[in-house]
């Protein structure tokens, strides 16, 4: 087990290195420069400014310098926010995004599981169709439409919640709902499909024959098995939720990381682009590792070995 984890961590570092390299060179292909007054300066004047940021060096040299800093845990100084270390930007902005993402993930998944469960139990019944419709709408309506609608109905018209901005728990309710629709619909679809299959399998019939109560069959025998495939999708979903949604953050004026990332690409803020990409990548790879380890716990059929095969 320990050997397995060590090996995986080593792979993670290699993957991160490849991601860092790829994104570094791709980023350099972006048109433009990080200068803001490019149209107002002569080429000599531009060169003087770029010199300060080490951007006049050949790209391979810049790459080596960057990796050197990275190894020492230095993500560099942002170009767009003068004198601000990238680490500070990431730390400041990840909080709201992570909170929203976590709330949306927890609430969304639980509601989704319930929805899927109800659908599976009343298979082909009225409740099944209702929950399927909800799930299909949830995956197909873009969340900015949904967010705009929520804001209009519950904030602008009914005035139950604040229109936007960040601060109290109340401020986070509408964006959480807008964000949780997707995980809810996804979870509902997975659970329904799996439950229908599991409830029709032999061991459930056996359990019924032995006189296990209906709730016991649904929750203890059925649900536990139906949740396994859900674990696979929840990991990546968690990362994408917690790293922020540009659209939701923009509509509800939330100071999150998603929007910051898109912004930094727009203004060629190289250190921030790299820092954000690497953080997202590290989170993603980390979560995948955790999920692989979790499989062993949830499903006894999956065993983690030393990995000689």
């Amino acid at each position, binding site marked *: 087990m320990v050997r397995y984890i060590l090996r995986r961590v080593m792979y993670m570092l290699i993957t991160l290195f490849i991601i860092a390299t790829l994104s570094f060179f791709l980023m350099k292909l972006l048109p433009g420069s990080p200068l803001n007054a490019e149209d107002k300066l002569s080429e000599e004047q531009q060169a003087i400014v770029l010199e300060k940021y080490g951007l006049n060096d050949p790209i391979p040299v810049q790459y080596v310098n960057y990796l050197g800093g990275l190894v020492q845990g230095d993500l560099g100084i942002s170009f767009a926010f003068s004198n601000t270390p990238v680490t500070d930007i990431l730390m400041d902005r990840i909080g709201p995004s992570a909170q929203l993402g976590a709330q949306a993930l927890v*609430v969304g998944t639980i509601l989704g599981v319930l929805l899927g469960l109800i659908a599976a139990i009343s298979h082909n019944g009225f409740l099944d169709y209702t929950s399927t419709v909800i799930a299909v709408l949830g995956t197909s309506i873009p969340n900015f439409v949904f967010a705009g609608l929520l804001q209009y109905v519950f904030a602008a018209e009914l005035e139950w919640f604040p229109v936007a901005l960040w601060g109290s728990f109340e401020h986070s309710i509408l964006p959480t709902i807008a964000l949780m629709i997707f995980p809810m619909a996804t979870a509902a679809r997975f659970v329904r499909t799996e439950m229908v299959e599991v409830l029709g399998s032999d061991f459930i019939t056996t359990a019924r024959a032995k006189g296990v109560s209906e709730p016991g069959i649904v929750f203890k025998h059925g649900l536990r098995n139906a949740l396994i495939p859900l674990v696979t999708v929840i990991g990546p979903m968690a990362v994408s939720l917690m790293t922020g949604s540009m659209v939701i953050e923009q509509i509800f004026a939330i100071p999150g990381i998603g929007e910051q990332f898109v912004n930094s690409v727009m203004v060629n803020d190289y250190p921030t682009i790299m820092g954000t990409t690497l953080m997202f990548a590290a989170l993603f790879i980390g979560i995948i590792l955790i999920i692989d380890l979790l499989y062993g716990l949830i499903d006894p059929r999956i065993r983690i070995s030393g990995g000689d095969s």
Partner: protein
Amino acid sequence: MKLKNWALLVILGLLLAVLAACGGDDTEESGESAESAEGTEETAEEPAEEGEQVLNFINGDAIPSMDPSMATDEYGFQFIGSTMEGLYRLDENSEPVEGIATDHEVSDDGLTWTFNLREDATWSNGDPVTAHDFVYAWQRAVDPATGSEYGPYMMGGVIKNAVAVNSGEAELDELGVTAEDDYTLVVELENPTPYFESLTSFGTFMPLNEEFVEEQGDDFATSTDTLLFNGPYTLENWTSTANEWDLVKNESYWDADTVQLDRINHVVVKDPTTSVRLYEEGSVDRAGISSDLVDQYSTHEDYAVTPETSVFYLKLNQKRSDELANENVRHAIARAFDKDALVNEILNNGSIVANGLVPADFTPMPETGEDFREVSGDLMTYDVEAAQEYWETALEELGTDTVELELLGGDTETSKVMNEYIANQLSTNLPGLEVTLKNVPFEQRLDADTAQDYDIQVAGWGPDYLDPYTFLSLWVTDGGNNKMSYSNEEYDALLEEAQTTLATDNPARYENFLEAENILFEDAAIAPIYQSAMAQLISPKVEGVFVNPFGATYEYKWASVGSAE
């Protein structure tokens, strides 16, 4: 069966209740972990204390830099302008009024300016503001080690030796700014610069307290604690990534008696619909209205349009296209699109038609005070008949009946519609003209501009100082921003004269500017489109906020809270 469904619903309801409770816990935790941001959190709804004058505004983005040498954008200059003070400040009529300087003398040749500084101005740490602070700040702005963009841009060619210092050919102390004593600042200029007085109100020219800046080092201007203020307001609760911050009345400002507002709270909101909803909710006192929302809000009682001083036009590149090198082709194109329809139906935000280069309500004529634009008149108007006459002559001269041209423009939603409209108008009104569209992001457009790799380009310019020269100098032969191979000796000579021999004679300079602008359109060098404006909802509470023609967008020194109803 039915009973079971009901049971499930009850379970669902119970679970929801539990979830709601859990959700509550969830935020309490994260609230604690985000403690550092806590202090700034609820500013937008903070109730004003009895008699306190408070306004709540939206800012379109975070403030990228509060360092006067490093700032390059609208928001940086806005908050530097509110929290700092240079030699002069612009008043309601854009006239320079006393700031740190009380008055000044100019030498007969217009090259040496001696400013007398007030002795009662202090920094927010109690230090006096002296002439040395200006010397340090200006040197810092052109020091190549600083890496400033606006330093060399604003000071190059204006302040003696600025270009040489920036390229490392001269020492810092050779820059033409010296402190004769603590309260006398002597500035030597490269050329006589009649608009220098208003230029000193610009962010890049703000003083800096050397001791403080050096002590902060790399941390300077990254948060409230690492800034010093000498202007009407101080900036509170700010860090460089902050999404909320406040301007608070600066009690140590030399003219604090004039400042009536106690506080102006700011919060970043980027989405236009959200801004308007926050305005209607009463959380903010001003909100911008984007083009698509204008129809819905133009009848709102708080709807207001504020003209801006940016001008947009078609650049006609004479280098790549042989056709555009033909004057008659340019004359035809410049007259062939309906600007009224474009402004009213496509932009729809209060922008006005431009029939010249220098914007309206920007610079008054030196003696009469009339607006330059009015005196210069409409130099290039929409006129299909004239356009077609020019077009026929042009085709004859070129010996062809079809012309293909590429129109390069921006790729924002509004730009795309506008580009399409202009392309359509041109090819409809000028038979035989085929226009292909190329909509690209801003950066790419700049690259194409620099390489002169375009035929027609939708471009614009905002002023950097209060003088027609900021616009007219764009088109001098081989000018850094010309990039369309326009060249006219007479035009060059008029502008050269305005900056040299006539530099101390402002009325004569303006005569030259009028003549130069006339030549520009006799040559049909560019095709003016429109002058931009801001459509906003502004609460009647907001009083005494002036809009500057350049530099900081808003001037809050004289602002106050009017009757709330």
